[in-house]
């Protein structure tokens, strides 16, 4: 048996780049950056046009710091060039297409050459290895299979790791739980909100999932408080995974066993943090919008892609020994933010406030309304067995405590409405946390 067959913590050979000396990593990054900029310049008309407008040529990229001079790519660029306008490879070399769920209008299409798929699989192997998974693990992959990148990305990564992958895809909670129990599942991939739903049903059905050890949760922002609660309630280790289709899919970043931020696979995805207003690159440690450049992507290189995710690069090295820099957990996307009575609110702040009050894993939904020109924020919270009492007074107290916690965190008066268990819609993918009924 080789070393990487050892139980959690064992080293997987694919993870070697996680530990490169920073100087060596920078050499690789620069080499790849120069190649990808040339490639995009040569094959992607929009990118070349913007470079020319700035009087720039690929040869101007002499160091990594020159990246800051290059133009950004934004989501609208993908929509405007629908479907294939940003491809840098001819169709004969493209072996896979994925598309995002465009909530408005046309979806976003992303493409992969075989080499791109190999890189994707590699970063997913490194992802699972960082979570302590290895050959012999049984991974239940409840990310949706199909146009969404989550399903297939995790699938091939799990197989290449040498684990057993169950391609169950999303949905059908009862079957998920039956499989989890009967197949001795040790690791689960899904959204954190869907895991809460599974946990709740598992308890009602009195199922045994004691072999489950690791959750690889992503595709939506979740708070540190939620992770602590999930780990305490379920006994598993819950890891935050980060990725986006425009860059590759899942596998851009992952937490290690220290759970102090997400390591970015910097040898393939180069991070910058910018001020979202000015577009200026911010110093390491400052909070801002994450911008990523794909260093090795062939079919669809993304140069300085604005992710809309708000985070900061962690300057200190990680205790796990990886030299890959970390980003702080992404609690919020600049897209998710809503403004009520002049106050910026992120759903993750609401979640943090709710978790401060005793009780259990919260299912909540935020409703924004406008009455006589005044914005109102209501948070619906499901009553759980842990907090339900036969006494009206106890429930009214709970309601007041939740309102006080929200007011404390947000600085806003918020109305809490207790609702029946399971009355809020359960999502099998990304949870929808906000309904905005305000007429603008």
């Amino acid at each position, binding site marked *: 048996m080789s070393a990487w067959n050892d139980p959690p913590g064992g080293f997987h050979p694919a993870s070697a780049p996680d530990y490169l000396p920073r100087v060596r990593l920078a050499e690789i990054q620069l080499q790849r950056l120069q190649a990808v900029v040339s490639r995009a310049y040569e094959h992607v008309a929009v990118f070349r046009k913007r470079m020319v407008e700035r009087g720039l040529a690929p040869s101007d990229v002499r160091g990594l710091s020159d990246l800051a001079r290059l133009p950004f790519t934004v989501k609208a660029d993908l929509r405007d060039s629908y479907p294939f306008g940003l491809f840098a490879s001819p169709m004969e070399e493209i072996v896979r297409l994925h598309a995002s769920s465009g909530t408005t209008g046309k979806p976003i299409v992303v493409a992969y050459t075989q080499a791109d798929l190999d890189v994707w699989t590699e970063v997913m192997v490194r992802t699972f290895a960082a979570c302590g998974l290895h050959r012999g693990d049984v991974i239940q992959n409840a990310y949706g299979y199909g146009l969404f990148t989550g399903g297939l990305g995790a699938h091939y990564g799990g197989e290449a790791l040498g684990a057993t992958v169950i391609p169950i895809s999303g949905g059908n909670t009862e079957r998920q739980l039956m499989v989890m129990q009967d197949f001795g599942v040790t690791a689960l991939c899904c959204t954190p909100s869907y895991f809460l739903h599974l946990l709740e049903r598992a308890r009602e059905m009195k199922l045994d999932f004691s072999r489950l050890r690791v959750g690889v949760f992503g595709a939506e922002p979740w708070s540190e408080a939620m992770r602590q609660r999930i780990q305490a309630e379920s006994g598993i280790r819950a890891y935050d995974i980060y990725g986006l289709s425009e860059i590759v899919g899942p596998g851009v970043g992952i937490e290690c066993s220290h759970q102090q931020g997400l390591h970015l696979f910097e040898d393939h995805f180069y991070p910058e943090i910018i001020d979202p207003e000015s577009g200026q690159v911010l110093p390491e440690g400052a909070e801002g919008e994450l911008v990523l450049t794909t260093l090795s992507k062939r079919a669809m290189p993304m140069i300085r892609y604005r992710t809309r995710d708000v985070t900061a690069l962690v300057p200190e090295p990680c205790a796990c020994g990886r030299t890959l820099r970390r980003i702080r957990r992404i609690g919020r996307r600049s897209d998710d933010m809503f403004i009520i009575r002049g106050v910026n609110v992120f759903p993750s702040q609401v979640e943090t406030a709710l978790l401060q009050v005793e009780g259990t894993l919260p299912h909540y939904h935020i409703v924004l309304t406008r009455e006589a020109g005044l914005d109102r924020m209501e948070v619906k919270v499901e009553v759980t067995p842990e907090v339900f009492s036969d*006494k009206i007074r106890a429930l009214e107290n709970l309601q007041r405590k939740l309102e006080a916690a929200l007011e404390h965190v947000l600085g806003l008066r918020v109305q809490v*409405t207790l609702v*029946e268990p399971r009355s809020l819609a359960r999502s099998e993918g990304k949870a929808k946390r906000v309904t905005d009924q305000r007429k603008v």
Partner: protein
Amino acid sequence: MKLQQLSLFLENRPGQLRAPCEALGKAGIDIVTMSLADTAQFGILRLVVKDWQRARQVLESTGMVVNVTEVVPIEVDDRPGGLAAALAAIEEAGIGVEYMYAFAAGPRPGKAAIIFRFEEPDRALVVLQARGLRILSAEDLLEKKSM
């Protein structure tokens, strides 16, 4: 003797009361008595049923949150001042009442039955019996109901 009371959380919307009652009906479980406490936003339905364990299973399997509380059924004289006399005894014993509600009819002629939710049901049981109040048994109440 204490009874197990089931409490359910209900949102204050039309039709919310029917679902639990229907679920119990389908399962053939008899509701012995009930009370509904409500606020502007939500209500708590409190039920005394035959076979509370099975009733709890039935309700939980439909996704409801069920809280089980011990309550004490006390027999009072069915005459003016009957309830006041019982309450006087409870007050003298220094027992706090959370809430109370009545049975449809008492098990014996001339008697009524009231369900009490006390802060300390066990102590209430001992001191109230010592003061001559008749505490009813589940059989008293359930048999009466099945007639």
